[in-house]
């Protein structure tokens, strides 16, 4: 039984997060440890013929539903495994896969001392690595890269607060929660500068039952069960 030391958060990684699940978590997950060891596999090329549908008739990229500050956000591991993808512009599936592939290649090739910004196609990509996860945001060319970097950091802080010392495994196993938080924070691609509390409260509210003020408080609370 491991000593009660908290698992390293991606926000404050103590040691190289070698993706072996910390002992405490592996006990909870029924020995998930060995399964997540980084195998150092080469990033697999995505075969387009793998049955992924191409949806014909998508609108072109430029005249999409309005230009938001953010075009898309990706989270991926150092091995090039996608953990989260949120697109704020309309593109075909095929195009997206191509973009993800290319971008991962470019970002993974960057050396540690380099800028956190890079130019890619007609977009600027802002990326930051937290432990074993890369957070990537694509913004319009003229946008402020530095504030986007802080946006990424803010998102990680929110995740950290919600999960309590978040690590990559949390995001892998609970990616839908990560999406909920992202959507609350970046509604449709624009940053909502709200208090950190209100973002998390909105998520947690949906984790419980909530009724409008006119109706009596949740029956659970009245019965003292909440």
């Amino acid at each position, binding site marked *: 039984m491991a000593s009660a030391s908290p698992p390293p958060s991606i926000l404050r990684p103590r040691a190289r997060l070698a993706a072996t699940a910390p002992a405490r978590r592996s006990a909870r997950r029924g020995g998930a440890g060995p399964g997540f060891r980084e195998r150092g596999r080469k990033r697999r090329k995505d075969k387009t013929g793998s049955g992924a549908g191409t949806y014909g008739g998508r609108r072109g990229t430029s005249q999409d539903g309005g230009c938001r500050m953010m075009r898309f956000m990706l989270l991926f591991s150092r091995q090039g495994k996608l953990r*989260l993808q949120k697109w704020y512009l309309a593109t075909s599936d095929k195009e997206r896969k191509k973009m993800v592939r290319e971008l991962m290649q470019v970002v993974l090739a960057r050396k540690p001392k*380099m800028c956190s910004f890079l130019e890619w196609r007609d977009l600027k990509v802002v990326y930051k690595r937290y432990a074993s996860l890369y957070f990537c945001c694509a913004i319009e060319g003229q946008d402020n890269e530095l*504030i986007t970097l*802080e946006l990424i950091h803010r998102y990680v802080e929110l995740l950290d607060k919600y999960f309590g010392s978040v690590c990559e495994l*949390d995001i892998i196993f609970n*990616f839908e929660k990560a999406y909920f938080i992202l*959507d609350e924070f970046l509604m449709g691609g*624009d940053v*909502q500068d709200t208090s950190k509390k209100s973002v998390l409260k909105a998520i947690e509210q949906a984790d419980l039952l909530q009724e409008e003020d006119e109706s009596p408080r949740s029956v659970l609370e009245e019965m003292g069960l909440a």
Partner: protein
Amino acid sequence: MSDIVEKTLTALPGLFLQTPGAGGPAAARAPFSSRLGGLIRGITALTSKHEEEKLIHQELSNLKAAVSAPTTTLKMMKECMVRLIYCEMLGYDASFGYIHAIKLAQQGNLLEKRVGYLAVSLFLHESHELLLLLVNTVVKDLQSTNLVEVCMALTIVSQIFPQEMIPAVLPLIEDKLQHSKEIIRRKAVLALYKFHLIAPNQVQHIHVKFRKALCDRDVGVMAASLHIYHRMIKENSSGYKDLTGSFVTILKQVVGGKLPVDFNYHSVPAPWLQIQLLRILRLLGKDDQRTSELMYDVLDESLRRAELNHNVTYAILFECVHTVYSIYPKSELLEKAAKCIGKFVLSPKINLKYLGLKALTYVIQQDPTLALQHQMTIIECLDHPDPIIKRETLELLYRITNAQNITVIVQKMLEYLHQSKEEYIIVNLVGKIAELAEKYPLFEP
């Protein structure tokens, strides 16, 4: 009353299955025995792409059977949906599940509805034929007495909604602008922003309501309205000059720390809000002396306040500098801004250097002496190991070419071209070189 009891009783099993201490870290993590967990562990144990394909195809056929089976409960459907999202993320097609995502959003309880809506936002796109089916669910949820459902409906609308059906929900959303809860008002504003983006004519008549949102007592709602204003001012700045005073006042309050402490990000008050306001002021003050004069004070204040050594402060400074240079010029402000740029360019931190170079490209035409001041640094950056810095320097040099330095600059550009593999950059650079060649006909010795 019985309605609520019924709702509560149906939700009870779901609630009890969550780890106790609902909300917060404990409830955040999925139970380790989830099927998604099993799938993920299964995939990670494999070593080849081929095996992964086999496993996923197997999983997808299981899921296909599960979603179409009449015995599948909504709770099981939610679980299936999560796995479907996962498979699509890995690059496999799960389009058979799309209709079920909509159904889940329609019929599920809160937790299931949430996953259903998420799946819809990830699976579908604006012109997808299934999107129309979402409208009914959204209409129903907008009218729900349960606030969380209303929030979910508004969130999905601000992400994806069929343009032709805007009239169906517009009155409902307009109604929410006066809701007592600020989160609903805020989300309603954002939903209307989305409508403005995809169909501006349809929200033409409610511009007056946006003004109300701008004056809302809740900061979040006000901040949300700024997105719309930024867009509208971008399209037509003259129509909104009268609001300059309001924006200046808001910015003064933010910079002066009048917002609740909650809105601080690393001791900086509402940085994104500040930046949004600076951008709006930039558009309003351009080529307009009278309007610009209204902002000089607050810009001066922003330049002064941003003294902390944090990235977010530098980001705000950058926007401030950009604004100072874009509006009607004032020499004291320009001096301060130039000093700022100097600090950036000379900074050892590479991100700041990049920002400094970028700022220089914006201001260089207005103030060429600035380039002279920093010419040593610029020359160093030309040979910087990071290609992005090099590129930005070339961008800068492109703007200050003259007969003397043209040869050197084009030479450097050609060097960069040789080692660049990015198609877009190559095309861009070649275009620039061609332009310069026309401007300065060179003789080849």
